[in-house]
């Protein structure tokens, strides 16, 4: 457990607390079914918005504190993921024009999950930016991946819920939601992949180095490519489609954490991510 006893810590734990509160209140409203007062509804939204704003403040504070884009190490990556939940939630509502409190609860708990490693696992020692990271591509490459990962995580939630549901009508609707999230995420996932490739050419001489991080990110990309082809060719095979989405998020988690996991395997080529 790596507890942060400074202002950064206060900001993170505050954000996590607000998102947790948001989750609990939204889940309660969802449980209560239809009849909820407008005031209660606004309160639930308000807590979420407050959490979202605090998460952004937390990220900006970090950026100012370390004097570079806060995307350099694992701590900053998860901090950024947390800050992106708010914008992703807002964007998703334009794609899924249903405002169930359950959706808010899902995004809130996702925020708590991605902020947990930043809050309690990774150390937040500031680092100077080495020459390799001093590129205009750094920000867009990481940001594209962060947004993509969150969309894919939301797709996975819908896909999983669809698989768990028993009524075929529910499966169809949730599969449609999963598709929209995956569709939103895939373009960003591809953008992240290509920006990384272009950056690799600029920094290391190769637009593809065949190293573990690149290969795992390719695996993830391919899983979603397969998903879209399966959906096109076998549109009624909803369970298979959703299973692919779940496989996709599993690969994304491996990609994100491989650098750390690979330390468990001696003799693995380590990659300076």
């Amino acid at each position, binding site marked *: 457990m790596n507890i942060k006893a400074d202002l950064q810590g206060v900001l993170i734990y505050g954000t996590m607390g607000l998102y947790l509160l948001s989750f609990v209140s939204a889940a309660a409203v969802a449980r209560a079914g239809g009849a909820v007062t407008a005031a209660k509804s606004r309160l639930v939204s308000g807590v979420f918005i407050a959490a979202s704003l605090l998460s952004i403040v937390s990220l900006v504070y970090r950026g100012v504190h370390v004097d570079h884009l806060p995307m350099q190490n694992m701590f900053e990556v998860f901090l950024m993921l947390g800050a992106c939940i708010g914008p992703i939630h807002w964007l998703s509502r334009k794609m899924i*024009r249903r405002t169930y409190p359950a959706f808010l609860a899902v995004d809130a708990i996702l925020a708590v999950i991605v902020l947990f490693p930043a809050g309690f696992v990774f150390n937040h020692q500031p680092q100077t930016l*080495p020459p390799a990271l001093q590129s205009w591509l750094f920000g867009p490459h990481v940001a594209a991946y962060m947004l993509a990962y969150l969309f894919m995580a939301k797709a996975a939630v819908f896909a999983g819920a669809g698989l768990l549901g028993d009524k075929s009508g529910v499966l169809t609707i949730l599969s449609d939601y999963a598709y929209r999230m995956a569709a*939103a995420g895939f*373009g960003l996932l591809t953008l992240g992949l290509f920006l990384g490739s272009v950056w690799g050419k600029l*920094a290391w001489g190769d637009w593809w180095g065949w190293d*573990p991080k690149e290969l795992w990110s390719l*695996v993830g990309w391919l899983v979603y490519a397969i998903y879209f*082809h399966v959906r096109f060719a076998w549109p009624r095979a909803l369970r298979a489609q959703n299973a692919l989405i779940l496989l996709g998020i599993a690969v994304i988690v491996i990609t994100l954490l491989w650098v750390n996991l690979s330390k468990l395997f001696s003799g693995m080529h380590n990659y300076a991510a």
Partner: protein
Amino acid sequence: MSTLKTARWCMIASVVLLAILADFSMLGAFAGAERARLFFNSMPLVIFWCVLLLLFLAGFVVFPSLRKRKMLLLIHAGLVLVLAGGMYGSALSHSLLNRFTGASQVTRAFMFLREGHTSNVAFLENEQPVELPFAVCLKDASVEYYDQSPMVKDYRSVLEIFDNGTAVRTAEIEVNKPLYYKGYHLYQNTFAFEGTSPVSGLMVVSARGVRLVFAGYAMILLGLFAHFGRAAFAHRPVQEDLP
């Protein structure tokens, strides 16, 4: 075979090949960069890449929607360009072209220059020397550190390129900012000191195929954002609500 059956088999083949590539990539990730590079350039994989390319071309023939829906066409044509660019820039392609046209075989080589020195010889990974079609002179080299710290902020070299004896270009390079000349990129790779004089380590990499690949990237991204942007935001009548 009926067109529907052909289409079905083509689709199955696509999914299978994508899955095979995903499995290869996982194996490669476990094997590490060096072994993965050798594996993906090995003869069985050369055959795989060719089959994949042929499947793309077959797809354009078999699926009318791939020709008619312009965004799908863009995406898949872009992928063909990336594949083609990758194959064109590969080590195998370099040695084949060298055999038939005498073009330089060098895909990647290294130079170590002291300030004021000029050289047209670079060294491969196996330390074998190769001659470059131009000469490089290191006019200046410097390191920049973060304030009061041993952490390096930047390495810089000022290079002058000589082609047939005449100076054709002078430019400053640093990490993330290579110099391009005649089909090659020159990179700031390493930096060392021999006593107090700096030795700039350069990496020379063939740029063959890169334009194809990056053009492919642009097409794919354009197609993806247009196609999926529409899909993600599309209005659709929902028959029933979630309970």
